[in-house]
């Protein structure tokens, strides 16, 4: 177990390093490099050189990368070019806001999707199952941000029940109920995207298990249906669902970025989109690394949980093997 854990953590760190190198390389491969950020028209070449030196951009790339890496490990993501503010000041509040939004949506979708999926697996092709299939088709085919816009038009503009966008109203900053009111629409948008895949997987996974021989045995020896479903089948059906939860994370993070843009939610996704246009490369690096860290951590947790739920999974040094 420990050997496996250490191996997986080492692997994850390597992946993080790779992602940061690729991002760093991409940013510096841009025509003109990050220097185009602050060169103003009419500046003399000497001025530009002075500024390059000031930002440390005149050094060889590997040196710049190692310098950045060394500071980042100590929690210093560098400063922005435009406002010369520490990137951490932008990054951490944004991460908090994204976690509030995504976390709520994620928990809600699981609370809805798993029980509903179980119910549908026991009543295949019924009304509820067909409705869920409809949501699945819609969720996979609909641009999530469009669904967000439609919600805005319906509930904010036409009905006027909920605020259009942002996280707080002008003079209610930090109030909990105001936050709740602002969260309803973006959370609904995210829940729809998540529901589409979670419903499908939880149903399919349950159906697979319900078809197994040991379930038939349980039924044959007279175990009540409730117990068959929840005691015998559900436990095993949860295992593949956990894997999917881990694998789906990057997809959800991408969806959250769009939803944040639509609802003007001050989170990581919007921070990334805004700063991509402005080419604030310190911010981009910061968001990339933190996002990758969160996603990889999620995958790692899913793997560990997977082993905890399924006693058949033996964790050895050589990855996961099921006996």
């Amino acid at each position: 177990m420990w050997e496996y854990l250490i191996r997986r953590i080492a692997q994850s760190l390597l992946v993080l390093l790779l992602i940061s190198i690729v991002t760093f390389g991409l940013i510096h491969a841009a025509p003109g490099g990050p220097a185009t950020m602050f060169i103003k028209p009419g500046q003399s070449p000497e001025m530009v050189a002075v500024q390059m030196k000031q930002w440390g951009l005149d050094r060889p790339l590997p040196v710049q990368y190692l310098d950045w890496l060394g500071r980042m490990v100590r929690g210093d993501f560098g400063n922005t070019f435009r406002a010369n503010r520490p990137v951490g000041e932008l990054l951490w509040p944004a991460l908090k806001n994204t976690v509030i939004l995504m976390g709520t949506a994620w928990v809600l979708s699981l609370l809805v999707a798993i029980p509903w999926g179980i119910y549908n697996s026991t009543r295949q092709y019924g009304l509820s199952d067909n409705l869920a299939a409809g949501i699945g088709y819609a969720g996979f085919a609909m641009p999530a941000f469009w669904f967000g816009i439609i919600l805005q038009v319906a509930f904010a503009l036409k009905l006027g029940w909920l605020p259009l966008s942002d996280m707080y109203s002008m003079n209610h900053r930090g109030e909990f109920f105001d936050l709740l009111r602002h969260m309803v629409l973006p959370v609904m948008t995210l829940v729809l995207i998540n529901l589409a895949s979670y419903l499908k997987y939880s149903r399919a996974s349950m159906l697979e298990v319900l078809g197994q021989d040991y379930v038939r045995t349980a039924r044959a020896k007279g175990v009540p249906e409730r117990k068959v479903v929840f005691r015998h089948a559900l436990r095993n059906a949860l295992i593949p669902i956990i894997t999917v939860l881990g694998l789906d994370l990057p997809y959800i993070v991408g969806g959250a970025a769009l939803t944040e843009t639509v609802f003007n939610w001050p989170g990581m996704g919007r921070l990334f989109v805004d700063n991509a246009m402005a080419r604030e490369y310190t911010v981009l690096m910061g968001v990339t690394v933190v996002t990758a860290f969160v996603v990889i951590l999620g995958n790692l947790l899913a793997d560990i949980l997977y082993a905890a739920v399924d006693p058949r999974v033996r964790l050895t040094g050589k990855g996961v093997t099921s006996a």
Partner: protein
Amino acid sequence: MSEVATLSTKPESLGRQVLRKFFSNKLAIMGLVMLLFFIVVALFASSIAPYDPAKVDLLSANKGPSDAHWLGTDNIGRDVFSRLLYGSQVSLVVGFSVAAGAVILGSLVGAVAGYFGGWVDTVLMRLIDVMLSFPGLFLNILVLAIFGSHFVYLILIMVFTSWMSVARLVRGQFLQLREMQYVEAARAIGVPSWQIMFNHLLRNATGPIIVAATLNVGGAILGESALSFLGLGVQAPQTSWGQMLSNAQQYMLVNPIFAVYPGLCIFLTVLAVNFVGDGIRDAMDPRQKIHIPKGRMAQWRARFSKSRA
């Protein structure tokens, strides 16, 4: 009765079986019809469209639907209906070319990994793990923001972030297929590796690849709309549905209905592609059981019991 007669002559070919199963699937037919509709619209957009989609007419801006402008005009007087027609071109071109690119790249990587195995396989699979552990959308945004939003870049970067599923699939197929005896035979008579891979093995993996390709089309259309919505995809004066949506959101207070049309077009196109993809998948899977609707089942039961009585 004719079915009984054909049985004695020749069994139905696999392709025919797949076709028959595909066309007995209502959703698949619906999807195919919808998709063909959008393809025809995209092909003949220039002759159907009543106006130039980029023509600005400030005097008739923000007009509602009328005889002259079927769906009204946007904030700078461009004809919404014409813009929708032209938008279908972008979506379909991006959708199909990205899917094609992803299939080519994915097949190549998957074939090499699956056929050679060993450390090549390990390295390539780790690469895929890395690619899958990072949100593709972020990478797309980064590249387009840094290198500029050219249409070609858009397609290339989307290919680069969507080939992984195909590669995994092809690798899995190859792992099975490379143990087949005909591979051994081919090797014995001296067929070079690359020919075994691409002539003998890839052909046998066609089915799953086609399915993965169709499902990729939908993903690519959604991806393009997202990037264009963020202002990083298709640029004016070119039109795309995602770009129209971002415009519609800015002028939501003036004319909320404009947010509905482009989104609906994206939704229907992707839905059509997904229906077709699911239809092909079900038709090709011999294990897939045919689901008989309750009503028809009851009908059969009734008929069966009547004949007995």
